[in-house]
């Protein structure tokens, strides 16, 4: 789903293989995006087992890690993204309570 424009979201989800946690994280992420960012987001999945050298650049430590690359600043959310509220706060889509 390519998108453009000032308020477009470029997201990258780092996983390490197809684990239950990574599958869950991806499902949670697409759900949240469809609901809140429809038409203006782009998700890229990076499997660190295939591309281990990519972990360093984004300072990936935990998996799954969601990185909001755009809009800046870069934001990181780790975990299976099961807490929608937290994810929205992390993506700056909702103000922290």
């Amino acid at each position, binding site marked *: 789903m390519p998108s453009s424009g000032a308020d477009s979201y470029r997201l990258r989800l780092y996983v390490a293989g197809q684990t239950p946690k990574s599958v869950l994280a991806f499902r949670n992420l697409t759900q949240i995006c469809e609901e809140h960012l429809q038409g203006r987001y782009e998700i890229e999945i990076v499997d660190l087992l295939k591309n281990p050298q990519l972990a*360093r650049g984004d300072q990936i430590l935990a998996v799954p890690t969601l990185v909001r690359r755009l809009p800046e600043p870069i934001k990181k959310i780790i975990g299976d993204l099961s807490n929608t509220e937290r994810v929205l706060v992390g993506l700056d889509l909702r103000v922290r309570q």
Partner: protein
Amino acid sequence: MNRIAGAKSDAGVPSCLPRGRTLAKSPTGIHGLDEITRGGLPTGRPTLVCGGPGSGKTLLALTFLVNGAIRFDEPGVLMTFEENADEIASDVASLGFDLPELIKAQKLAVDYVRVERSEIEETGEYDLEGLFVRLDYAIRTVGARRVVLDTIESLFAGLKNDVILRSELRRLFRWLKDQGVTAVITGERGEGSLTRQGLEEYVSDAVILLDHRVHDQVSTRRLRVVKYRGSHHGTNEYPFLINADGISVLPVSSMALEHDAPLERVSSGVARLDEMLSGQGYYRGSTILVSGTAGTGKTSLAAHFLDAACRRGERCLCFLFEESPPQLLRNMRSIGIDLEPWVAAGLLQFHADRPSRYGLETHLVTMHHVVADFKPTITVIDPVTNLMTVGTYADVQAMLTRMIDHLKTENITAMLTSLVPGQTEIERTETAISSLMDTWIVLANDEVGGRHRRGLYLLKSRGMAHSNELRHFRLTNHGLSLLDAATEPHDRSDAGDGPWEGQNRHATV
């Protein structure tokens, strides 16, 4: 070189180890540490190095890594959690470690892991597979045999979920073992525990504790091997030093009493004193203490010893803790001993320092280095008692034991002079070192008819039939001249009841 071949499979069950077989070890290349640990850190296992801020943890870990890469053909990985690669590189550049060059040569990989709690939102389950992937990638990139994690406890500040973190750390250390890499994990000293986060619970093969304390405004660093599963190790606290050459741990050689006992003799430089020493002088490689109050001729006796040695073409090292070399040269010329030509010929070297300038361990290491560089056969320390002002009694004793031990191992004959505050206290002040001495010469003045007379006697001299006479002597313009006891008619008119007898009786030898 230090690696001891051993059955790896046995190593996990030390109690089953056959006698004489030890587990494989990876040398750190750190002067002294490999001796204490009898060969280095356990190969293929993690070692925890803990200590307070500034105690030298990172430096020790890095030295292990760099030495591995350069000297032992074991490439390494540094995973740093506190400083980035540039900062680390500039920190250790002064020690001659060229990290960028090692990285370029594929002997070292550095990965800086930065965790900033404020930048991370946590939601739901996760694991630290990303960390594993990075470490694994770095290890494979250089074919690493050694890994340093410095300081992994920083993760606790960056991540909120302690439960996940702890179980992942447990998994990480097991994983490191499975990789067969020799790892050093640093940890900050905690209150009432070795590390703040109790890492010692996970890393239990070997634990090294570093300590940096200040006593009477003199700082001392110490190292202790708290634990070393399946191996013997020195259990004392060992002083160590961080200087331009990196880390040195002392002692190097005091693990056992294994010095040779040569029969060769060396002249004291005073013919009549040699006669008192069963006619031949001191034993080569022995340690001689010359003690006495101020102005009794201690340095003069040492100068004779040095002069005689240089005449034989021996290399002599003289540590001065009171006088400067020019002062000593001038003073000795006044009694007809000219040491200057020996200095010019390179046979005699002075090394003068104010005792208070450094802590004890610095003096010790410096002396070790100077001895190693100059390779003397004779060493004089004048006066050794001035060193006692820089440490506690126990520290000084420990230090001198190590120094003397080292000299003995190197078969260096050592003469230590000892300044005694007052005649009555001779024995008490000497107990710190007297038992380490092979020969003990006591110098003292006594007073007869309003005149000082100089005297000396041998309180002990191990392994030889030595004279037990008190002999008077004069310091003349051609040196120290022992008077003949037999031709001294007024000598010891109060025999048997004089101050000498009393001293002999109480001497702790």
